[in-house]
């Protein structure tokens, strides 16, 4: 990128704005009237600024890239800039820790934005998502294809003027439900009786699926080895026997060796964000359960934190402890689950998995007892949790945390860790250096298995994690075995936190805003009638937590309405998949399955 020294529009340039002495003219406005500070960046200066931030300011982790369509925004004009689309970047530092730098690039429709993939390769999938859902073109992106919908899909669904087949109203609650709510079958709305719309003038008879260019088909052909083998493209998925749901990998192999691998996703794209923008703030809570459906509690927590940031409300002491307890139990569930299924992918069908998920049932029983559901807990609310623990719950949880779970983890350790086959299959497979992982925006256990002690509970503590004494385990190897073992170590650390939290949990309120109505667990900013809706003040907030799979962030924009204006999930599973291709190259096809297993993805979160 060439750095222009003369800038056409002088008045917008202010050298007092941050970073402008380093990259002149990059920041064209600051918007500090919100919960987090935001810098507006000139599109042509984005890459120099990013390079500067990465190299000079140690912001080495591009955590999230997303976009907001402001065409229907009724609120204040931000920093005097009115272009329709706003591409939002969140940068963090794995070295310094601490909060983010948020960059906004406002562009009108049909304008391109320079792709950040050259500076941060981890922008790859996220920019593809923005392209897919908003139609913003990123100049210089190596592979700008649709990612969640399919090639040939009409329109860009997250634009505010895009309507789906069953579209009723812009915001819930819909008026047709009450008082004259005669049941109507949605399918009856459309002549073909299904959830589809077609562009006018489109002829199904002459339709041909567009031929898409997939990079693997162009992968270089190496003729190494004795025999001159030919490389072929092998397609794995979307239905395949590994237990990670509907996920597809396109591989180019030579013999058994992978030359290139391209993940294909979107087979579980459930329009979480589009639905989320129609829902009220509260209604999104049960939907977050279904993101990473193994860890509904931590999803609840992340979303609650984001909205609490917007609302600026306090959470009572007891609720804080309950939240931590739930989040850590969830982490144990997730890690044992993922260990079991890494082993499954290794070919050890069933037995290790059954051992690993046995104790899960006991934890789920505890969850069910307090929240009512085994998996879809829907337990947290803004300002606390929905209901108090049941009598005797803490004792049972203590028994688990002090006695039963440590034994179970030891058993798992004894069963698996020394196993020569696992070592042979895992050691040295799927290696990627720590720098590469950070550049690819990978977070969570994967990063810690490469020796980077980056854990949001430590570097930017949320809830009350700064009160507990626990370590961030790291392993230097960055291979499959390390990724397996780090999960065991982390589960042990979670037990430590659990033991302290269960010991210290104070009595008291569980929800600061619970109304006493009929002794139920009302949990909103309500205090009476109509409390199920509320309007947070205008602004935007990004909250992130250390979910079991990595950094789980929620980016919400409010325009002071009962519904979020924008609701984005920065999901660790999705972004960690950036590393799948680079990690698998050079290994065997059978290893690719395990490498995928060791990333530990959940498709509900990948595709949202």
């Amino acid at each position: 990128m060439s750095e222009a020294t003369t800038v056409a529009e002088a008045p917008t340039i202010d050298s007092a704005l941050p970073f402008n002495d380093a990259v002149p003219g990059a920041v064209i406005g600051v918007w500090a009237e919100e919960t987090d500070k935001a810098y507006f960046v000139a599109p042509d200066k984005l890459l120099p600024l990013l390079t500067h931030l990465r190299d000079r300011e140690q912001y080495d982790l591009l955590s999230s890239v997303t976009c907001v369509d402001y065409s229907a925004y009724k609120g204040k004009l931000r920093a005097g800039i009115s272009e329709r689309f706003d591409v939002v970047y969140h940068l963090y530092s794995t070295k310094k820790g601490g909060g983010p730098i948020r960059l906004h690039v406002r562009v009108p429709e049909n304008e391109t934005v320079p792709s950040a993939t050259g500076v941060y390769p981890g922008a790859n999938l996220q920019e593809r998502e923005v392209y897919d859902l908003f139609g913003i073109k990123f100049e210089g992106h190596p592979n700008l294809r649709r990612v969640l919908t399919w090639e040939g899909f009409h329109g860009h669904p997250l634009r505010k003027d895009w309507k789906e087949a069953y579209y009723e109203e812009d915001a819930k609650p819909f008026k047709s439900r009450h008082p004259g709510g005669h049941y109507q079958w949605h399918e009856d709305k459309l002549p073909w009786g299904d959830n589809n719309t077609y562009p006018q003038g489109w002829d199904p008879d002459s339709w041909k699926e567009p031929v898409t260019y997939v990079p693997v088909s162009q992968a270089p052909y190496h003729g190494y080895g004795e025999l001159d083998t030919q490389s072929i493209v092998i397609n794995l998925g979307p239905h395949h026997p590994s237990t990670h749901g509907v996920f597809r990998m396109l591989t180019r192999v030579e013999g058994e060796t992978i030359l290139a691998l391209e993940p294909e996703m979107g087979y579980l794209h459930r329009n979480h964000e589009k639905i989320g923008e129609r829902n009220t703030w509260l209604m999104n809570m049960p939907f977050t359960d279904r993101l990473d459906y193994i860890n509904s509690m931590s999803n609840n927590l992340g979303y609650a934190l984001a909205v609490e940031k917007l609302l600026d409300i306090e959470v009572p002491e007891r609720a804080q402890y309950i939240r931590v307890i739930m989040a850590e139990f969830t982490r144990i569930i997730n890690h044992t689950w993922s260990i079991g299924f890494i082993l499954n992918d290794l070919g050890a069908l069933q037995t290790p998995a059954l051992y690993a998920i046995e104790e899960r049932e006991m934890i789920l029983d505890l969850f069910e007892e307090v929240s009512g559901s085994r998996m879809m807990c829907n337990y947290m609310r803004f300002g606390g949790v929905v209901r108090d623990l049941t009598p005797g719950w803490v004792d049972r949880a203590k028994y688990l945390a002090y006695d039963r779970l440590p034994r179970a983890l030891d058993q798992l350790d004894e069963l698996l860790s020394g196993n020569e086959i696992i070592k042979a299959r895992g050691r040295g497979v799927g290696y990627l250096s720590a720098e590469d992982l950070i550049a690819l925006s990978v977070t969570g256990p994967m990063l810690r298995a490469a020796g980077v002690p980056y854990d949001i509970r430590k570097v930017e503590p949320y809830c009350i994690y700064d009160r507990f004494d626990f370590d961030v385990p790291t392993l230097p190897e960055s291979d499959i075995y390390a990724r397996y073992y780090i999960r065991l170590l982390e589960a042990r650390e979670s037990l430590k936190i659990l033991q302290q939290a269960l010991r210290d949990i104070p009595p008291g309120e569980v929800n600061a805003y619970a109304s006493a109505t009929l002794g139920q667990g009302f949990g909103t900013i309500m205090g009476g009638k109509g409390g199920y809706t509320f309007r947070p003040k205008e602004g935007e907030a990004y909250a992130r937590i250390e979910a079991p799979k990595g950094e789980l962030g929620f980016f919400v924009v409010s325009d002071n309405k009962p519904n979020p204006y924008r609701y984005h999930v920065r999901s660790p599973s999705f972004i960690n998949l950036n590393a799948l291709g680079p990690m698998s190259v050079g290994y065997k096809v059978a290893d690719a399955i395990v490498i995928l297993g060791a990333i530990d993805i959940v498709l509900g979160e990948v595709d949202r």
Partner: protein
Amino acid sequence: MTTTPVAQFSDLKREQLNRYLHDRIQVPEELQANVMVTTLDKIYNWSRKSSMWPLLFGLACCAIEMIATAASRYDLARFGMEVMRPSPRQSDLMIVSGTVTKKMVPAIVRIYNQMAEPRYVLSMGACATGGGPFKEGYTVVSGIDKYIPVDVYVPGCPPTPEALLYGLIKLHEKVERQSITTVPWYRKGASEAVPVPILGPDIFDPRKVQIIKEYTLGSTAATGGAVAATGRLQPQPIPEDVKARIRAAQAKYRAMKKQPA
């Protein structure tokens, strides 16, 4: 806005239930005296129901509960189902566990076509049954039965393992009612493949091309204001006659795809 009158509603329910309230195997009249067939039926049904191998096939959250059902606490092996086969060729039962998206449905239909008959489909969870909480979404199919015939629906989000087991028992009951003389898969031309839906600008079922064409090309003038500024089709109240036609077609299709009880 269309409304479904209550009377019609409960009528339909009753009609559907009736078939199952009259119990047991229905032996065709000409075979009433034929003891052989009924015994054969018993053995035939018993053997099919006692080792029904499900397809190892998970889509979303519900799949986790399906795994939990197969794991230690609920132990699917008690129903002869412990072997989940990853290959459709070796499995008899497809448990559609989770949200069916448009991108995925061609693959599901293909897998279904590859399954050998007799084959059964159990739709697990609100999503597979009717779209579930994500029904309004733009890439979610409103129930897998839009594309392939379903034998048992298990509602719930997610159905607990017990609920799934109950659904499986219901399926067993259904199997018990079948008779070797009437099952469709020993008849001529029975196992026609379900046409695989195609991903166009939106997914379309080859069986519905006529309706779609009429809407996007033919009767454009009739719908007039249906075209919004974005050039896309907006959901509009459908003319009554068209709707009647579709209803009839749907009913026909539903009747067609059903396996005789």
